[in-house]
């Protein structure tokens, strides 16, 4: 009897407790789930952005969950969608755009904005940002969010020691500078790694294609082209400079990434995202003077705009009307001028709309020492209107293609095969990946 009573009491208490907590957390606000991929310092900013939204109004609540990396965010969303447990909004990196466009499970941005009466003015986005995420017909299917581009980071003091006051604008000049730095006793004139993004950027600013079919924008039957023209000769140059000790490979495996090697002053030059501007600023060796510049081009090249990198926000299908209203409020809110300005002030990302950039410039944002130079990334992104080669890259399973190219470059730089051979092999394998993707997506077309 005692037992029974005890159990009854326990159940009663549990029920009361459950009721109590349910009351306490009664969803007075309409919630929606938002998953982001950024990690570390940038991930904290994402969480902060959500908190700001939740504090800014009382009707809606964003439930934001970091997924531990861009690729994880994509994998987890796929797995979650298959179990119908997916979020309403997800942050997807540039390379994942194709999968989402072809998935048939997204609520495309243009339609979503119309259905939920959003205030987005699509013409405000920088053309380079808009064109990257737009369909071949120019419709935006996702909302641009954190955007960046690649920059040349240079150490002013190191350059001062060789009597130079500007960053090199051409690769020819960069080679002369590296030799001078080396002669002046700098052990590492330039830090490099095998990140393929920089080669995509260089192809864009030299107006060279990565693949046929307008870099894949016009059809899934695209074939890779990076074993011809500009890239083989550029990579052969890099290999030569590397062999001469002018460039050094800096990755997590060697002990320091190129950002760390630049920030602590051991390497005088490197190429990385403008998003790292804040990281370098906060971790640079004490008293180090440095700057950023547009990526160098080869002499005699008409410079094109560089590619936008980063991520955009996708709305997923299959959620309730209430969740969509909350999501629309969030997306509207992050596109307000104040919030577009907030992002660059706490990260290295660029303001993604022309009005916000102009307002920030007028307000003297870029004259503050900690942000100085970041406007050069906008200059680089908007240098020319995007061409077929500098609009973006839209290739199926592109992450795998990048890693094939990366492995082959490692083989070339460690002397296992000549550069041209390595690029030919990477293209052959990359094309197999594209054909498999085309077969898997049979019956679907890029919008």
């Amino acid at each position, binding site marked *: 009897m005692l037992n029974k009573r005890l159990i009854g009491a326990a159940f009663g208490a549990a029920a009361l407790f459950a009721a109590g907590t349910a009351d306490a957390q009664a969803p007075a606000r309409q919630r929606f789930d938002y998953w982001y991929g950024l990690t570390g310092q940038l991930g904290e900013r994402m969480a902060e952005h959500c908190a700001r939204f939740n504090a800014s109004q009382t009707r809606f609540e964003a439930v934001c969950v970091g997924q531990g990396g861009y*690729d994880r965010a*994509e*994998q987890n969303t*796929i797995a979650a*969608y*298959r179990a119908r447990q997916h979020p309403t909004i997800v942050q997807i990196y540039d390379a994942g755009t194709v*999968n989402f466009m*072809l*998935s*048939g*499970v997204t609520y495309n941005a243009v339609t979503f904005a119309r259905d939920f009466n959003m205030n987005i003015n699509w013409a405000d986005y920088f053309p380079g940002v808009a064109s990257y995420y737009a369909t071949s017909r120019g419709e935006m299917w996702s909302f641009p969010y954190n955007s960046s581009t690649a920059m040349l980071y240079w150490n002013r003091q190191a350059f001062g020691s060789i009597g130079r006051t500007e960053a090199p604008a051409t690769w020819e000049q960069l080679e002369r500078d590296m030799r001078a730095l080396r002669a002046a006793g700098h052990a590492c004139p330039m830090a490099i790694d095998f990140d393929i993004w920089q080669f995509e950027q260089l192809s864009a600013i030299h107006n060279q294609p990565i693949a046929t079919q307008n870099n894949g924008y016009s059809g899934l039957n695209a074939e890779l082209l990076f074993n011809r023209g500009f890239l083989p000769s550029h990579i052969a140059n890099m290999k030569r400079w590397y062999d001469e000790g002018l460039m050094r*490979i*800096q*990755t*997590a*495996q*060697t*002990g*320091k990434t190129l950002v760390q090697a630049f920030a602590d002053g051991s390497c005088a030059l490197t190429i990385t995202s403008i998003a790292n501007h804040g990281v370098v600023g906060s971790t640079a060796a004490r008293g180090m003077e440095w700057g950023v510049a547009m990526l160098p081009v080869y002499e005699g090249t008409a410079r094109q705009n560089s590619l936008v990198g980063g991520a955009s926000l996708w709305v997923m299908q299959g959620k309730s009307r209430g969740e969509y209203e909350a999501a629309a409020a969030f997306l509207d809110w992050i596109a307000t001028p104040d919030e577009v300005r907030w992002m660059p002030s706490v990260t290295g990302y660029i303001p993604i709309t022309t009005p916000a950039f102009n307002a920030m410039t007028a307000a003297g944002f870029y004259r503050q020492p900690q942000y100085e130079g970041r406007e050069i990334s906008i200059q680089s992104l908007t240098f020319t209107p995007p061409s077929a080669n500098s609009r973006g890259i839209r290739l199926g*399973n592109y*992450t*795998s293609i990048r*890693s094939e190219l*990366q*492995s*082959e470059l*490692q*083989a070339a*730089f*460690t002397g*296992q095969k000549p550069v041209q051979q390595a690029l030919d092999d990477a293209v052959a*394998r990359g094309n197999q*990946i594209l054909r*498999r*993707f085309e*077969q*898997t*997506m*049979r*019956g*679907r077309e890029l919008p």
Partner: protein
Amino acid sequence: MSGKRVTFNQRWLAGLLILPQLLLIFTFFYWPTGEALFWAFTLEPPFGGEMQWVGWQNFTTVFEDPLFWNSVRRSIVFGVASTAIAMGIGLLLALFVDRQLPGYKGFRFVYFWPYAVAAPAVGLAFRFIFAPDAGFVSAINQWFPNLWNPALDGVDAMILIILANAWSMVAYNFIFFLAGLQSIPRSLIEAGAMDGSGVLRRMRDIQLPLMAPTVFFLIVINITDSFVNAFGIVDITTGGGPARATDLMVFKIFADGFKGKDYSLAAAQSIVLMLLVCALTFVQFRYVERRIHYT
């Protein structure tokens, strides 16, 4: 005697008792394996949708791919080397502790710890310690420039992941070897000692043969473990590089499936990996176990 024999006729009760375990095995082994087998014969977009039956295409793609065979070779080198090192050192440590050398109680306690460390944590520690620029081992490069660089030298990278894996498996082997050694009757060893055989002789002729079942068990476990559990270490330390020098099968499956979103190709490779591990285990049981006498 008859009538006193205890029989067990309630088959339904037996079934009920093993049901939870069967359910677990079904949910976490047979179901996923069945799903993978099905995927291996189809092509399916990442988000689902129209699934195409493609027959053996995924398998022919896998078998015709020289990089797949590269990953099989690397996995075998990795498995054999890390098993040999982990078992050798585990045995040595167990023999020391069994001989009750000074401080053996403390060692018996701490030697087991590495096994409790998760593989990615092991990988991270080894990456820091063995980083050519900044790690503890970078001193080697001060004396012999470019001798050690796992970021660029495939052999160095392979040595690095073998050491990392062996380090965490030593602990496991140590415990089993120690248990095996302590179950050998002291009288046998004492008899050997009275007949004038030295420490090493007793180890070789008495302790090792009597521990043969343990050795066999550990070989099977170590080989299987190094084939299927190396992912965490590879992912953190080398990422499969440089130039695919450490592209083990498990890592390649992860890269193709989760990074590349090609679930069908990854499924076909996991089926091949499963068959390979089954085959290895079968060979070990068929040809090695016959020479082992259980006491």
